[in-house]
């Protein structure tokens, strides 16, 4: 289970409370910026594979919390059949929302595996979710993704150093990696950690299938794909775009690690969506941003 570090969000006028709840024998940690700012719905963030609020949302949490209340869930990884993993995680998100933000619609924003979890929660409990943001998510694990997953597991068995390099290679966009110095590449590679929790999540990733759930999602949804994403290629996001009724779609020039490569653009997209989910109609592709 991911451990909850204290979130670096205490400065800049944003503070956060740390709480936890139990579901069965799992302890689920969450962070809450508490203060309501403006009239916008609160945003609930769900991190991706191998991540945590701290590692995936150290930018998004405090910067979004500057303008609206933000809650972020540190997912606990369930035991049991991997096919049921995302449903179990979605229950955690639902439980946190019911406890912390009862009886009000929230904007649920998930990244990577967190997007799958968020979509599952939105499909299961439409009453809790007023808006949905799916960043680098996917509809149903396909052969390309299973192939990558195979390599990941094989390297984990055989070569930990190569696994770290492979993770860096897969996570970031080619243009970003190309810009880095040798030292920066090594620092990036060294920052990757794997453990049994992540291996269990990778197993869950192999078995994702939202084809039944997606049609049950009724709230306005924003789908954000990374143009250079090798882990959840943008075509997967397009499949979500096709499968969710009230969805709009946009791409950002980034690899899978968009929360690190383009965090300010994500803040823009999420905050603008939260302020007015219907600014663009269902089926729209957002206009290109040309700053």
């Amino acid at each position: 289970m991911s451990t909850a570090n204290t979130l670096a969000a205490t400065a800049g006028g944003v503070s956060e409370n740390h709480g936890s709840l139990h579901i069965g024998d799992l302890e689920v940690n969450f962070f809450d910026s508490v203060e309501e700012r403006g009239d916008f719905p609160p945003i609930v963030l769900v991190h991706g594979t191998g991540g945590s609020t701290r590692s995936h949302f150290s930018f998004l949490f405090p910067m979004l919390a500057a303008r609206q209340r933000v809650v972020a869930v540190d997912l606990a990884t369930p035991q049991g059949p991997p096919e049921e993993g995302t449903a179990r995680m979605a229950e955690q998100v639902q439980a946190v929302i019911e406890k912390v933000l009862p009886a009000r619609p929230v904007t649920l924003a998930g990244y990577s595996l967190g997007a799958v979890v968020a979509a599952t929660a939105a499909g299961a409990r439409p009453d809790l979710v007023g808006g949905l943001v799916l960043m680098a998510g996917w509809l149903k694990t396909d052969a390309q993704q299973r192939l990558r997953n195979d390599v990941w597991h094989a390297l984990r068995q055989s070569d930990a150093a190569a696994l770290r390099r492979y993770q860096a290679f897969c996570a970031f966009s080619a243009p970003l990696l190309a810009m880095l110095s040798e030292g920066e590449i090594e620092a990036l590679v060294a920052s990757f950690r794997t453990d049994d929790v992540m291996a269990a999540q990778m197993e869950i990733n192999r078995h994702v299938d939202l084809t039944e759930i997606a049609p049950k999602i009724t709230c306005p949804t924003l789908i954000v794909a990374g143009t250079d994403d090798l882990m959840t290629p943008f075509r997967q996001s397009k499949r979500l775009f096709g499968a969710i009724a009230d969805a709009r779609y946009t791409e950002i020039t980034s690899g899978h690690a968009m929360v690190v490569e383009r965090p300010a653009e994500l803040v823009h997209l999420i905050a603008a969506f939260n302020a007015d989910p219907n600014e663009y109609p269902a089926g729209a592709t957002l206009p290109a941003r040309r700053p």
Partner: protein
Amino acid sequence: MPTSTPDALRDVSVIIVGAGFSGLGLGIQLRRRGETSFVILERADDVGGSWRDNTYPGVACDVPSPLYSYSFRTNPDWSRMFAPGQEIWDYLRTAAREEGLEPHLRFGADMLEARWSETDHRWTVRTPQGEFHGDVLVAATGHLTDIKLPEVPGLDTFTGELFHSARWNHDFPLDGKRIGVVGTGASAIQIVPQLAEIAERLVVFQRSAPYIQPRRDRDFSEAEKNLFRRDQRTVEEMREMLFWYNDSRFAARRLVDDFLAEAMWQALSHLEKQVPDPELRATLTPDYTIGCKRVLLSDDYYPAVQKPNVHLEAAALERVAGSTAFSASGQGFELDVLVVATGFETYDLPSSYRIFGRAGRSLADHWSNGMQAYNSIATAGFPNLFLLNGPGTSLGHNSVIYMIEAQVDHLLAALDWRSAHGGRVLEVSSEIENAFARRLDEVAAETVIIRGGCSSWYLDPRNGRATLSWPDFAHRFRDECAPFDPAAYDGDERALRV
């Protein structure tokens, strides 16, 4: 009043004052929309604004050139990441010419006075070139444009050569001279390495040390430029990458620990790498939080101040007597030249003393508690007046051109709305203006601009307000201030987006 040759543009729908990035940007958009009824009044004899006035050795932008240019006129030809000032000036001159602005430009046309007429609901601008009348007045007069000299006793009696960095005297040979540079801001740190090469002795008067990060400048190769020409999308992609990267740096300005620590590390490790002597390093270490003042980019400033012919005086210039410049520590320096790089009139704009709205009230008077404007663009009591790059637009972390373009979009929509509504007068109420300003103050209070423990040119010393700064992401300025909502001009506070 001297009226010269008949001028078809004496009477127009839009009068723009100032021919820098702001005024030209608006002019280009008007031309592209087929508008012809506008005039651009410029007090100098050429376009370019900051880039015409700043010709000091080493002048260059400090936002990368692919981003520091108009989004609607990207340029594949920049010679390097941070183009020299001359190239930026050329870019603007070419833009003005190619976009058909020449017939609209009036040079030597200093706005001496602009007055709103309550009877015919129009603006009259008096200039040495005669009077101009317009429905709408746009002040694109800049806020880093009127030079500011330090109040130093005896400065005016200095017997050597003295000039401001933005009024460089190129006729005066500097080789082998004893030169003093006053200030260590953005201009000074570009100037010092250049003068260190040629001066016999160079004294740098430092009141407060700036944070300096690596510049990472580089040439663009011919192959790269060719690609930019052949595939416009490659320029745009670089622009987008630079923009969003820069915008992410706002997290440090908002004092988010991890990002603040990272910004601090980038600066202080650069200092440590470049300056081995601990004593000098201490002198060069700032005493406030990074981002409170403009963070500078340089790879050659620290090496320059370590040259044997350069002396870093860790004290402000305090007084001048004859040819001797004394620092606040009492040390005197015999000098042939004093280069004053102390910046500009920023919070109390000279142009605001020349604009008179309802009841003959001046903008300066209206702004006696600090300048402010609804959406950074419109003020109460000044109907049909729009400000470009005025209050609440300055950025420490991203390109000002982006802000200007967002304002131009708001203004174009406002003009469209006016023409669709019988030329109605657009004016905001004081309530709207104040509500907007209050919200900006609240946001700024959570940023390093207010909490960083420094006095910077972003702050109005009369009241401690950050009246010049946009205290948020640059993208949020576009999200919130570019859209035009007529309800705000009708006094509806729900139309406030910030």
